[in-house]
């Protein structure tokens, strides 16, 4: 399909079909680790996802750092007041869920997750065809660019898996390896030997479902949002009235999407905190 689309685009602009348009916008700027342009196999990097996410991470955390570096206990500047607002919001959320020393790791992690995911989600507001236009200006008509890193399953799964490993790390750190294994077999149904298999199965399902639901929720929301933007963008192909209609609908969806962008970032952050807090509790 990808090669077919590439052929279509290669011939002429008029050969663009709706499916080709969507296919183009949903294709990654993929490069093999060995230098080939391919999207097959494991040893592939999505340059667009990587560059956008790292740039956004450096941007948001860098901006916060610039303020935090000069943070004073006296009368705060407006920038510091804003950063403290975000800080307080995250800190309050974490405080309500996690009852331990949150400042050493969990709260800063929650801040990172929230701001980074929020920034990555926000890339959905960039008009898809503007992004494609800029990229094709620099990289030619074939160049593909997905602006929203969180609509790449690799990003959301990477985050969820990292949290998953942290979850196991904290479980073992707090309860000890024996305590963790004990919990795998002895909760939630009890310590009797004949419920061990049920307990283990239960925990296994939980450990598998946590990263899946964590990552797929964010990915699904962002991917669907992007697809709807693309479908609305297709209206432009039907003429002036279609363009206007599509623009109005697109504006409406953008406004609604502000909610989704913020909400999904918040949910992802909350789940992160909840999972890490659960890892600290012994049953």
């Amino acid at each position, binding site marked *: 399909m990808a090669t077919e689309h590439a052929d279509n685009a290669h011939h002429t602009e008029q050969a663009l079909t709706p499916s080709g348009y969507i296919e183009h916008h949903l294709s990654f700027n*993929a490069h093999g*680790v060995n230098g080939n342009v391919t*999207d097959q*196999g*494991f*040893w*592939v*990097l*999505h340059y667009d*996802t*990587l560059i956008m*996410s*790292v740039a956004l*991470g450096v941007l948001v*955390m860098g901006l*916060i*750092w610039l303020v*935090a*570096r000069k*943070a*004073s*206990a*006296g009368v*705060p500047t407006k920038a*510091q007041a804003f*950063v*403290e607002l975000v*800080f*307080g919001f995250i800190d309050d959320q974490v405080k309500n869920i996690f009852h331990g020393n949150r*400042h*050493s*790791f969990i*709260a*800063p*992690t929650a*801040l*990172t997750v929230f701001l*980074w995911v929020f920034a990555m989600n926000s890339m959905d507001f960039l008009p898809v065809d503007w992004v494609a236009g800029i990229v094709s200006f620099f990289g030619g008509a074939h160049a593909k660019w997905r602006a929203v*890193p969180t609509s*790449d*399953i*690799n*990003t959301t*799964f*990477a*985050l969820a*898996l*990292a949290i998953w490993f942290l979850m196991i790390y904290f479980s073992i750190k707090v309860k000890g390896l024996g305590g963790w294994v004990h919990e795998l077999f002895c909760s939630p149904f009890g310590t009797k030997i004949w419920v061990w298999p049920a307990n283990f199965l239960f925990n296994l399902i939980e450990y598998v479902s946590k990263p899946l639901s964590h990552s797929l929720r964010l990915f699904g929301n962002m991917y669907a949002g992007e697809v709807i933007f693309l479908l609305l963008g297709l209206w432009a192909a039907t003429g002036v009235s279609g363009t206007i209609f599509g623009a109005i609908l697109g504006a409406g969806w953008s406004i609604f999407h502000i909610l989704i962008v913020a909400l999904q970032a918040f949910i992802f952050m909350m789940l992160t905190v909840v999972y890490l807090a659960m890892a600290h509790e012994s049953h």
Partner: protein
Amino acid sequence: MNINFTLIAQAIAFAVLIWFTVKFVWPPLLNAIETRQKEIADGLAAASEGRSALEVAAKKSEVTINEAKQKASEIIGQAEKRASQIVEEAKGNAKVEGDRILAGAKAEIDQEVNRAKEGLRAQVSSLAIAGAEKILRKEIDAKAHSEMLSKLAAEL
């Protein structure tokens, strides 16, 4: 939905971002906010402390003023008492002195009277003698009586 090496790269980026936040972003913000919170709490505590201190001072000053008033009225009372005492004393002294002077005067008068009486008595006796002499000079003949007189003189 193709999982590939991007996953690992993103996880590394995530780990670096978390490390950065834990190390450089969170602590200074937390420090600033907690320091300010402490300062505000201290300020509020100091303010309420000052307020209560002011109340205590006001109460103390009231007590002091009352004490001073009481003392002042006491002193005034004492002074009045002392003044009347002095007046009484002076009155007493004056009376004693007056009495003394009066008594002295009386004694002097008595003395004078006595002296006058004595004088008078002396004069009366000499007058009586003079009168008697005058009377006697007419009736007594010196010759007739010279015998008796010489008798008297002999008896002396």
